């Protein structure tokens, strides 16, 4: 029997090619892209799970509580790791990972700046799972100046397929490292990714031997069955034992958090993470988009199958007369829908194979088709077949199997009005989903554009940022480089500072600030600039003066308006600020106030800012004239080579630099936009099919109306009226839903555009337009047809 049913199903596909194509196309698009989203989600959730001991590894993080401020840092103090192992029996191992400076590594003529090199404890390989290609895991990080390279870095310096262990690599500070091991590249789904590791014993003796500096990541391997939150409580007394002596006088409390390593990527909210974090809210968003895509595709199938039921009616009647029971008929139609689903699924896999590279570019993922083929994927595919096949097939199956054979065989099926209501409900839900997606897309894109284009309080256009190596005494060289640049008439102005807006070298220090109620301790963002910096970036001075010369180096500071407001200064000029914990009586004095500008991304509200005078620092801002920027950059490079012959010339544009902070959101925004577009396309496909059949059903009515003298526009509007109503109903549902979710989403942004009425109106109009276009496509064709023809066949 099954064979017979499959055969009929296949012949039915063949016979009604347009219909089958529409169905398969809709389902294929739906399945393809919901699968891609699922793969994305799975990848996001897979972070750090590849470690064999992943369930027992945790990262220790610091919660720092000031009287008015609290901070969450991913980093901890250097002595913490060994102390944990000593004090707590449940800590089997502890590993510290410390950033190494960005320096140039040299092997013969191969010279590159390397980032993501870390110092690490020698037991790293006992805790984490990083397969070694060469070398001995036990000893690789023991001796000072040992260097472990990843495969790609080893190939970069030593070429492919060479034995690298035993070779040495030098950096531009003259340090020589011995390569002791080569590991496979760190998987992309890791919260910390490194290209190389240096033995921690390389660090100078007494390095950071204090509980007052937070400069490294601390990981622990907990004993089996250790509860991380219980362990977290046990760490509370460490403050009194080790840190109180340093921090009590500043009124600062510190406690530690224990993050299971597998939860870092999705759940951590620490500052100073080594890599970009994921976001649970996007996981939910993507899952719902994937789910809705499937639902919409299912609805298409249901709508088309029931609308088309008249064509199948005769067959059902005959089968019933021949003795088929309802369950048998239901089975038959479910088999049909499952077959269509399987077919679409296979097509989807082919499609994914080709789309994956584009999806990777869009999402910033590194998904590989081969690695997607695994048991859990098969489970997902199976689930999709069951879900789509059965859900999509269920209604048509039950509906069709209900037919009374006699009515069907008599050919009087047109009266079946019961499913018209259901079809309307289904179409309304499709419109609603599409509209909600349109609203969300509009709001997300609007917010992203707002962040890119908002006035940041400084000018970031045509400004290049050049960073030199910050170590050693480079002031003289920076000064001559700047002078060199100023000679170029295409370079409008040059300044230097310790960081550019959006840069990473912003310091955060404890200051004692004068206020009405005496001195007040507070952590404040600060960095050094030169006297050209404010002018170069168009940052407005509202009170007092700019830095004017070397005498300002000692005591003068410039603060922003937020700082003035925060401390309630009526006359900011002359206010005194001391370094936190400095009892020598030395103080700094405010000489100028600047308008607030965004030194950090728009995710952070503008905070108090304190600027020192530090001329000739290592970050140089160059404002260039528009036009031939390439040749200006070329001449900059020339000057650079003369002054810094040992350093390679690298520059970024300040606006790009600043916007790169939103890359994660931009990426997700793009994914979201493309996928909601696709959802709308699937809806259109379904609508196209549905309307084709409903107009066909009303062909007789249309013909009679035409004979009675109705013109084409009247007929089109007659048919379109229904759909306008449906869009209106959808608006009523979609608007509040869209408002609710987008209001919630926007709340995470301190700076936002807010919800605009136009977004909602636009989504409704677009949906209406799409609906009307689809409707008119068919109805005009029917309305133009010769009425006698269709009446004759009745």
């Amino acid at each position: 029997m099954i064979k017979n049913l499959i055969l009929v199903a296949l012949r039915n596909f063949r016979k009604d090619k347009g219909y089958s194509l529409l169905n398969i196309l809709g389902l294929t698009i739906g399945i393809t892209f919901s699968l891609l989203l699922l793969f994305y989600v799975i990848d996001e959730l897979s972070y750090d799970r590849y470690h064999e001991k992943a369930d027992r590894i945790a990262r220790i993080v610091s919660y720092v509580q000031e009287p008015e401020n609290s901070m969450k840092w991913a980093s901890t103090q250097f002595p913490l790791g060994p102390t944990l192992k000593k004090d707590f029996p449940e800590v089997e191992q502890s590993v510290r990972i410390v950033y190494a400076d960005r320096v140039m590594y040299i092997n013969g003529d191969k010279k590159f700046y390397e980032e993501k090199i870390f110092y690490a404890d020698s037991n790293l390989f006992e805790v984490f799972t990083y397969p070694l290609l060469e070398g001995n895991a036990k000893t690789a990080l023991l001796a000072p100046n040992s260097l472990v390279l990843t495969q790609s870095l080893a190939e970069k310096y030593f070429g492919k397929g060479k034995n690298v262990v035993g070779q040495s690599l030098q950096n531009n500070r003259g340090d020589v490292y011995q390569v002791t091991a080569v590991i496979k590249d760190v998987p992309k789904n890791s919260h910390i990714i490194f290209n190389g590791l240096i033995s921690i014993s390389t660090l100078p003796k007494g390095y950071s031997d204090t509980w007052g500096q937070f400069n490294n990541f601390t990981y622990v391997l907990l004993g089996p069955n250790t509860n991380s939150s219980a362990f977290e409580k046990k760490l509370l007394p460490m403050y009194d034992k080790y840190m109180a002596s340093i921090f009590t006088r500043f009124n600062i409390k510190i406690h530690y958090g224990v993050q299971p390593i597998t939860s870092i990527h999705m759940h951590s909210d620490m500052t100073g993470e080594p890599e970009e974090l994921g976001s649970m809210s996007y996981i939910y968003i993507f899952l719902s988009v994937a789910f809705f895509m499937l639902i919409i595709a299912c609805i298409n199938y249901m709508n088309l199958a029931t609308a088309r039921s008249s064509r199948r009616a005769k067959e059902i009647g005959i089968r019933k007369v021949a003795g088929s029971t309802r369950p048998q008929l239901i089975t038959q139609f479910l088999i049909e829908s499952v077959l269509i689903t399987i077919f679409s699924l296979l097509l989807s896999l082919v499609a994914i194979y080709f789309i994956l590279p584009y999806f990777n570019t869009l999402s910033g993922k590194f998904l590989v088709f081969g690695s997607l083929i695994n048991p859990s994927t098969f489970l997902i595919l199976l689930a999709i077949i069951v879900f789509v096949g059965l859900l999509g097939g269920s209604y048509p199956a039950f509906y069709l199997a209900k037919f009374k054979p006699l009515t069907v065989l008599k050919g009087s099926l047109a009266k079946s009005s019961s499913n018209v209501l259901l079809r309307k409900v289904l179409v309304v839900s499709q419109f609603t989903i599409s509209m909600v997606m349109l609203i969300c897309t509009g709001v997300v894109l609007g917010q992203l554009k707002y962040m890119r284009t908002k006035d940041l309080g400084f000018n970031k256009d045509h400004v290049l940022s050049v960073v030199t190596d910050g170590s050693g005494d480079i002031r003289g060289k920076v000064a001559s480089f700047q002078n060199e640049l100023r000679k170029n008439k295409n370079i409008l102005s040059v300044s230097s500072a310790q960081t550019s807006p959006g840069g990473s070298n912003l310091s955060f220090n404890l200051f004692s600030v004068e206020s009405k109620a005496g001195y007040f301790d507070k952590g404040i963002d600060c960095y050094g600039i030169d006297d050209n910096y404010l002018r170069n970036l168009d940052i407005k001075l509202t009170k007092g003066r700019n830095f004017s010369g070397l005498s300002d180096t000692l005591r003068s500071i410039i603060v922003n308006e937020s700082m003035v407001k925060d401390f309630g200064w009526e006359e900011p000029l002359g206010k005194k600020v001391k370094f936190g914990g400095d009892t020598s009586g030395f103080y700094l004095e405010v000489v100028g106030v600047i308008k607030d500008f965004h030194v950090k991304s728009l995710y952070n509200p503008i905070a108090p800012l304190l600027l020192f005078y530090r001329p000739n620092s290592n970050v140089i801002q160059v404002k260039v004239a528009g036009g031939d920027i390439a040749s200006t950059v070329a001449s900059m490079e020339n000057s650079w080579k003369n002054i810094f012959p040992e350093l390679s010339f690298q520059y970024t544009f300040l606006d790009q630099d600043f916007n790169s902070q939103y890359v994660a959101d931009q990426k997700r925004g793009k994914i979201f936009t493309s996928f909601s577009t696709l959802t709308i396309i699937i809806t259109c496909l379904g609508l196209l099919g549905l309307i084709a059949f409903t107009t066909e059903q009303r062909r007789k009515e249309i013909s009679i109306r035409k004979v009675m003298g109705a013109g084409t526009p009247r007929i089109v509007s007659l048919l379109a009226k229904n759909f306008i109503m449906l869009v209106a109903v959808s608006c009523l549902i979609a608007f509040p839903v869209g408002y609710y979710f987008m209001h919630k989403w926007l709340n995470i942004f301190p700076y936002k555009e807010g919800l605009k009425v136009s977004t909602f109106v636009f989504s409704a109009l677009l949906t209406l337009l799409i609906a009307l276009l689809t409707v008119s496509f068919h109805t005009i064709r029917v309305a133009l047809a010769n009425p006698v023809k269709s009446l004759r066949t009745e």
Partner: protein
Amino acid sequence: MLLNLKNVFKWVNVGGNRVFLLKDIDFEVEQGEFISIMGPSGSGKSTLLNVIGMLDSFDEGEYHFLHESVHKMKEKQRANLYKQYIGFVFQQYHLIDELTVYENIETPLIYQDLKGAERKAMVADMLDRFNIVGKKDLFPTQLSGGQQQLVGIARALIAKPKLLLADEPTGNLNSKQGEEIMGLFKQLNNEGVTIIQVTHSEKNAGYGSRIINLLDGRIESPQTP
């Protein structure tokens, strides 16, 4: 006795008026009979046939088929009953367009849960008997009307029914094809199949052993040809 109907009424309500489709039908059929139901359009011929075939229900009265009370049965039991004992032939043939001749004939057997090999033998027999072996892989649309009806009859007979119901089996055929079909019916009847047919034509009715005349849902005086 194969079946009998006792005081069967069937009606529909149209705007508050009750319109009778069948009125007080008393009707018995013995095994081996060949009955023709005749009457003008709208007299209830097809309705009666459908009630006998259990495809349609009635509102009042009793119906016994092989001593079982059809009027007391649930739909599923009725379906089981007609699946086993009744074959249908339609004026419009009602073949499934997506199935070949062979598969169309096979369909009733599938729903009787017969084994593949068994089905194959039975269908082969039937094809042989109707001389359509050469056409077994064709689809209905590739056949003439007469051939399609032949397939329809073959399908109705495949499950070896006790009763064959035919609603104007020759209505869509030309006279030569019609004659062939009626000849076939006569032959089947001679082999023991009970047949009830609805027809407009006196000539076709002449093949049967008994004629029932319907007028406005009521049986007129019975007559023998």
